[in-house]
């Protein structure tokens, strides 16, 4: 039957499934475009989904090893997105 422990496990499994589906969809957007901002947004969403996936796996395995990777994706992904956007805006990213 559904007890609290099972509930968490089930929620994680469902969550993983959903996040994986989201990954697949953003991947489609990344590849199909059509415009560059679409692709940049898709890449950024891909980062967000990856963070979610890592945290979910971390909770599932009860391990903190996934935490740093998620943290860095959050930070570095943002810097990358900013750089790409700045390029679209001005071409010259450091000015």
């Amino acid at each position, binding site marked *: 039957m559904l007890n609290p422990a099972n509930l968490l496990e089930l929620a994680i499994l469902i969550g993983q499934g959903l996040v994986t589906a989201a*990954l*697949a969809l953003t991947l489609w957007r*990344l590849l199909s475009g059509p415009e*560059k901002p679409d*692709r940049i947004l898709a890449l950024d969403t891909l980062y967000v989904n990856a963070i979610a996936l890592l945290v979910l796996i971390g909770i599932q395995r009860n391990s903190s090893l996934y935490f740093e990777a998620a943290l860095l*994706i959050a930070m570095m992904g943002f*810097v*990358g997105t900013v*750089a790409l956007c700045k390029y679209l805006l001005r*071409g010259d990213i450091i000015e």
Partner: protein
Amino acid sequence: MNLLFVVLIPLMGAGLTAWISRFGRLWSAWMAGLVALAALGCLSPSVLAAFGGETLIQRWPWIPELGLELAFRLDGLGLAFTAMVLGIGLLVILYARYYLSERDDMGRFYAFLLLFMGSMLGVVLAENLILLLIFWEMTSLSSFLLISYWRHEEEARNGARMALAVTGFGGLAMLGGFLLLGEMVGSYDLSQILQAGDQVRADPLYTPMLVLILLGAFTKSAQFPFHFWLPHAMAAPTPVSAYLHSATLVKAGIFVLARLFPVLSGTIEWNWLVVGTGLTTLLVGAWFALFQHDLKGLLAYSTISHLGLITLLFGLGTPLAAVAGIFHVLNHATFKASLFMAAGIIDHECGTRDMRRVNGLWRYMPYTATLAMVAAASMAGVPLFNGFLSKEMFFTETASFLAEHPMGWLLTVAVAFAGIMAVAYSLRFSHDVFFNGEPVNLPRKPHEPPFWMKAPVEILVAICLVVGILPALTVAPLLQVAAASLLQEPPPSYDLAIWHGFGLPVVMSGVALIGGLVVYAERRPLFEIADQLKGRLDARAVFDHLLARLYTFARAVTGVLDRGSLQRLILLLLLSAIGLGLAGAIGSGSPLTGERPRMPIDGVTLFIALALALVSGATLLLHRLRLTALIVMGAIGLMVSLLFVKFSAPDLALTQLTVEVVTVVLLLLALYFLPARSPAESPLWRRLRDLGLALAAGGGAGALAWSILTRDYDPISDYFLANSVPGGGGHNVVNVILVDFRGFDTLGEISVLALAGLGIYAMLFKLHLPGPMHNPLGRPWNWDRHPDIMAALARLLLPLALLVSVFIFLRGHNQPGGGFIAGLVTAAALIMQYLTNGVAWTHRRVSSNMHPLIAAGLLVATGTGLASLVLGYPFLTSTFTHVHWPVVGDFELASAMIFDLGVYLVVVGSTLLILVHLGLMHSASHTPAIEAMRGTAWKS
């Protein structure tokens, strides 16, 4: 212990001298003098022992695995040369302080001079042959720097390059000779080699070994036919000529002849080679010296001639000749150094050294004239000066061959001729410069130089006189111990008196003096002959021709291997890799798939792997659209990182993520200048061929990975896993490997990173590239440089990002992280401020000068390594301890963390240096305000 420091003090002092010159140019002169005095002081405790005839040997292990040790030896011969190097060195330091003009960088001069002094001391004090050769090469390099000191002058650069090419070639030959000699004896220690003379002379390889060593010695000592570099090296400042080209550098070759005299001499090969070369050099030098119009050119050829004289003496092979040789080394150093200094004073006062214009200086500088003429008299071999004594011994030795050898008279005549020419050119130096009419059209009116500029000349001339009049009371003890250690036995009795009774040597001296007078008086017809010969006997033309041929040959070889096509090189590389891989796979006969049971596949991993394949393929298809390809590549990086996490390599994942973003920024900086699309440049058949090649290479690499992954094998990682905590005090094996087990590699890598950063900085220095004014679609760029929301958001993120960086750094030793990743995180956080808030805003808050940061990082990392050396452990040994901190709990403190801090600083500094300067390269082209700011940033 002190001998090592005698050598190290000048070498270390060179850097200090260069540094201290920023407080004022004279500081470096004082510092150089102090350093030389310190080296002398360091030597002094051993001087008495060496005078007593002892041979002092001191050793420290250096690379024991190779049998190399820092072994030094002080005996009479070494003492004589050391006295010369340090004594004349001190005088030259004093002289140069007045010689160099305001425009010359004194710090650089003295730093190079001390570098040379240390190398030269190393040569004369080395006990190990290989060590001697290392110092020998260092003298070549430092003399290159000294000759080309006035680097704005083409003459100086060419002269320096020629000297380096000739002596470098000799050094290479000598390395071969030393290796042969060392293998013959079974030891590279001089003490062993000097005892093994009979064994060496009987060896079948004796002749090639001798030729190689002599090539080294002859090139260094400017012996014919390698003499031509010395006159061209006269483009150096005169203090350098006085030091290197009279007293020290050119005597290094003589020193090797003297040092190995007991081992190498005593064979017919030695006699013929060394006497033949010495005699030719003696005559060639003496002849050409007379016809030089340049004062320093005359001295250079006369130096060549005197070096030939000394070589000839050693070539004769008798103990007495060797004694005369070493005596003349000392005498020549004193009178020639003072003559060079006098020539420098004349040049300094007149603005030219051309003897056709510099005349009649007696009236303007009688004091200097007197000094110079005394030294010139010594050079000519006039009685009562030191040059006379050794020249008399030289005449005696050559005359003794008259009876022993049927061709002996030829030697006597040739030597007498050289003596005549020596008197003639000495006369020219004295008469032409100080008398012979009036100065012609001098740029300035000459007068006596400042007191302290004359002082070194006075001291040297005084030595010439005192030694010349009272040899037994002055130079005799030094000569005695030097001769004893040169010969490795008590020297035969000789007499240093001025008058030996009437005999052939006295006749030869008399002939030389009178003949010299006659030749000088009747010099006009000789000058005409010399002028006619001038164009034909140009060794420099031969050298240039040979060098040009060498370059042509080298280019031809390079051209065969490298046709300037990267595709072709990659093609060859891949073809050979595929060929070798196939050859190995076909021969082995083992199946592709091993026996290891496969791991289960879970859905998420499968999905990520498929996604990775998909985005990789997409990048391939999209690669002509550059920006799109870059965006899609971001997804590849992400997928790879996720796979790293999945397969328990969190450190790799973190590194991949941080490097990824820095790479994106780097590529975007470059893309700004590049067209948005890559055109297809190769024809279709070639692209199809490359596709096939890529598939074969990729398939091969995949098959290799598959066959390894499906087998059980014994990786080296077990050792690191087992020893990480007990040996390095950290639970994160990757980090412990980086900062502890392989700390030395890491030190090398961060040095390379720092160099790359500085190299890129240097290449971008003042480079401005115009960027496109509109985007690839033809629309102008957005006017809003730094959108406010983005700027404000990024500012808020900075402290958080720095916190993450600190967190990752501190945890690094036990959890995923470490200095490298933390450094990249910090760099990315700061880069984000450049992106969103602009360069001007960021540079008001963060220094634009990253050099100190990089330097500090390297110093910290190296310092950690040295600290363990000081404490008596091998370089970079790390230590750790557990501390209990109140709130935090048990905490591990490892010295490796300080090393990691160095890594962190270098990474931050280099990354920022590279990216920011790449960015500034084009913002300068359309924002003048930033250009102005950039200028000030460099100055700070």
